[in-house]
């Protein structure tokens, strides 16, 4: 048993890279693929690197591959958009060291801003697309993908979905193949992508895909489960295959591990034997459209949703719609829906006072991506746009221009975190330095990429194990920005004065707020409590919206007063600073005496 382990899809990808003699791996943290890099970092003898953004991560892996080392880049689906520029040109080059791009799609948007189907990138880039359905396959497909990459001279995309990334299954462990690294051999025709070299590669890309499509039988990636029934052939891939297997229906199934290119000739031959061909796939009809284009009378999306994660229940419903199954039975019944529980900023989160100040100031705030995206939700509802990493700066600039032209000039505020600042905020800042509009940018420097589990940023410095930190204020000064102030959010009134002052000044002003992430750096001070003899039940503290603070009827009372759960409060003091009658006080009781 000892060489079998229970691994998540993410851990299995890391293991596969290790065993296949992988050398250079890079990533930028984003759910659902964060754990790939975290697991890779546990292996010795390889480079596992958190890069500043997905483009840099991809380029690092490209460099490794150019030098003949097996390389991997991992990222969430929207990260591929950032990395698409180098990827679309890199794919033209005949690959040297095996190269896999592992992408985590997020059907259902459990932690993403869009639901794009990354499989289309494979077709777009004329490269192979592998879709594992179990952690074991996830591990195996890394080695297979690297081999395909080397043999056919193309990058290979391994596409996961959030459920597979986070689901565990048994994985057979093997030994590491020792890496062999040939080193980089200069060859301008191969590596310099300009005409005429790049022109020739257009033909190369077509040929390699055609060649791979013919070789799929020998690759053991696709399986045909022929049950002798000839009424329906189900074509599927990835986790939907496992969901389907759960129903144990007895229909023939063609399971694709290689979703691009498809073994079209073979599928045509098999499909001809069946009365109906039904494709079961999540999101867009990627497989279905390829089959139809090849003249196979396939259907699918008319029965299955184009959005959301597919499950066993979803497949059952779709097959009922397709007239293949009868309606099933259910279990304990459907109770009235329980009240929702939306995510919240943590106790002691340093973003909270900033949102509270901006809400009271009725500021027009352009949001960005990170934990602070939660400023969209009630009760703050202060962020008015949320798009993509670093987008706040350009959006605000354009909006301000349009408003001025319409004689509707006003103060604009943007918020951006330290991770996003270095990911793709720098160019937006460089662009905005000379703006004459009334623009205030608040940099929420909490010294970590908090949303994805606390990976370091260039400002982490001595709070982590880094030897040096880049100062955001110094960077911005070097851009020629004059109006920069710094504030500590836990000094509420000073932070308020600094932000309000900056909003009043014309031109660009920057406020860098400096409190570190409460969760990641485990900030914990003696808790606060409400002195209910003083509390006037005004609910000002409720507006601060910290998880420990609620209104409750204390014993022997007939009205509600504020209450702070001492087990949840981490003692940041912000609620006490907004209470108009100073009813919230810091406990002097030692930790053990907490009720």
């Amino acid at each position: 048993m000892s060489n079998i382990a229970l691994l998540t899809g993410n851990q299995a990808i890391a293991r596969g890279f290790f065993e296949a003699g992988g050398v250079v791996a890079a990533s930028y943290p984003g759910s659902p693929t964060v754990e790939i890099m975290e697991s890779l970092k546990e292996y010795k003898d390889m480079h596992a690197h958190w890069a500043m953004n997905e483009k840099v991560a991809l380029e690092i892996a490209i460099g490794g591959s150019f030098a003949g080392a097996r390389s991997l880049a991992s990222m969430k689906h929207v990260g591929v958009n950032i990395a698409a520029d180098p990827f679309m040109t890199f794919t033209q080059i005949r690959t040297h060291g095996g190269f896999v791009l592992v992408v985590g799609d997020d059907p259902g948007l459990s932690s993403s801003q869009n639901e794009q189907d990354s499989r289309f990138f494979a077709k777009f880039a004329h490269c192979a697309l592998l879709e594992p359905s179990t952690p074991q396959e996830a591990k195996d497909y890394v080695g297979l993908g690297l081999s395909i990459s080397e043999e056919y001279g193309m990058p290979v995309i391994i596409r996961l979905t959030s459920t597979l990334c986070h689901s565990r299954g048994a994985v057979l462990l093997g030994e590491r193949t020792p890496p062999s690294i040939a080193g980089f051999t200069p060859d301008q025709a191969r590596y310099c992508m300009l005409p005429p070299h790049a022109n020739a590669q257009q033909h190369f890309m077509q040929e390699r895909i055609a060649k791979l499509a013919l070789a799929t039988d020998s690759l053991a990636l696709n399986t045909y489960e022929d049950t002798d029934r000839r009424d329906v052939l189900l074509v599927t891939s990835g986790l939907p295959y496992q969901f389907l297997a759960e129903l144990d229906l007895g229909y023939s199934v063609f399971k694709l591990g290689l979703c691009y290119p498809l073994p079209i000739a073979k599928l045509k031959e098999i499909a001809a034997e069946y009365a109906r061909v039904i494709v079961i796939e999540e999101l867009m009809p990627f497989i279905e459209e390829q089959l139809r284009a090849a003249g196979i009378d396939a259907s699918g999306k008319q029965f299955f949703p184009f959005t959301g994660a597919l499950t066993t229940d979803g497949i059952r419903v779709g097959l009922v719609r397709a007239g293949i199954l009868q309606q099933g039975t259910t279990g304990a019944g459907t109770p009235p829906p329980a009240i929702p529980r939306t995510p919240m900023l943590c106790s002691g989160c340093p973003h909270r006072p900033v949102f509270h100040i901006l809400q009271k100031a009725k500021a027009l705030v352009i949001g960005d991506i990170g934990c602070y995206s939660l400023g969209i939700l009630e009760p703050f509802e202060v962020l008015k746009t949320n798009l993509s990493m670093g987008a706040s700066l350009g959006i605000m600039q354009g909006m301000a221009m349009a408003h001025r032209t319409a004689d509707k000039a006003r103060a604009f505020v943007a918020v951006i975190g330290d991770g996003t600042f270095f990911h793709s905020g720098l160019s937006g800042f460089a662009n905005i330095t000379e703006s004459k509009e009334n623009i205030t940018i608040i940099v929420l420097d909490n010294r970590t990429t908090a949303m994805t589990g606390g990976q370091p940023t260039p400002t982490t410095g001595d709070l982590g194990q880094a030897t040096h930190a880049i100062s955001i204020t110094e960077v911005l000064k070097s851009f020629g920005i004059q109006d920069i102030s710094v504030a500590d959010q836990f000094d509420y009134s000073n932070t308020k004065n600094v932000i309000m002052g900056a909003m009043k000044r014309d031109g660009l002003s920057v406020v860098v707020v400096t409190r570190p992430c409460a969760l990641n750096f485990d900030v914990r001070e003696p808790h606060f409590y409400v002195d209910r003899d003083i509390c006037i039940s005004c609910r000002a503290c409720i507006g601060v919206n910290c998880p420990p603070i609620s209104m409750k009827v204390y014993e022997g009372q007939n009205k509600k007063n504020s209450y702070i759960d001492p087990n949840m409060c981490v003692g940041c003091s912000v609620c006490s600073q907004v209470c108009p009658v100073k009813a919230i006080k810091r406990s002097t009781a030692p930790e053990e005496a907490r009720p």
Partner: protein
Amino acid sequence: MTTNILIAGVGGQGLVLATRIVGGVAFRAGLQVKTCDVIGLAQRGGMVWGSVRFGHAVHSPLIPEGQGDFLLAMEELEGLRWVSLLKAGAVVVLSRETILPNRALLEKDDYPKDVPAQLATHGLKTVCVEANSIARQLGNKRLANTVLLGALSNYLPFAPDTWLEVLRESVPSATIELNEAAFGLGRTPSL
């Protein structure tokens, strides 16, 4: 036959570790195992869940509707949320813990009353566990999940030694003895 266990809680309660431990025990016992947890935005105090499925041929890591045999609820409201995933007669191990969701803090929603009684109306067998007070008596509120695992272990076909083995490998080494004690108190409540 596949056994389906759903674990539900609030982001930050340590659900991923609990899922890993339950899955690890079934795996150690030689069964086929699939698990899943939600990770992501919901971790910031949102609703989170995990699934563990074990048996002789397990395909999906997710529990189909109406198939859940057990629900381990780390919080009362979260115990109510997933009833439609459970079989009639399923066992709910319910921690007597309430964490107000945002809209309850804002007085826009009322937190549900008498959750055990509500679960009973759906024909579920509810086992209430004072996991937090037991954990606090042991001096560390993070032991609450281990107390709950102890309670759940009474209903699953695995030896206590297997549980303890996996537990020891999964928790910080400085807390092994406390976790063993918490597991024991969950398994055999001293009345």
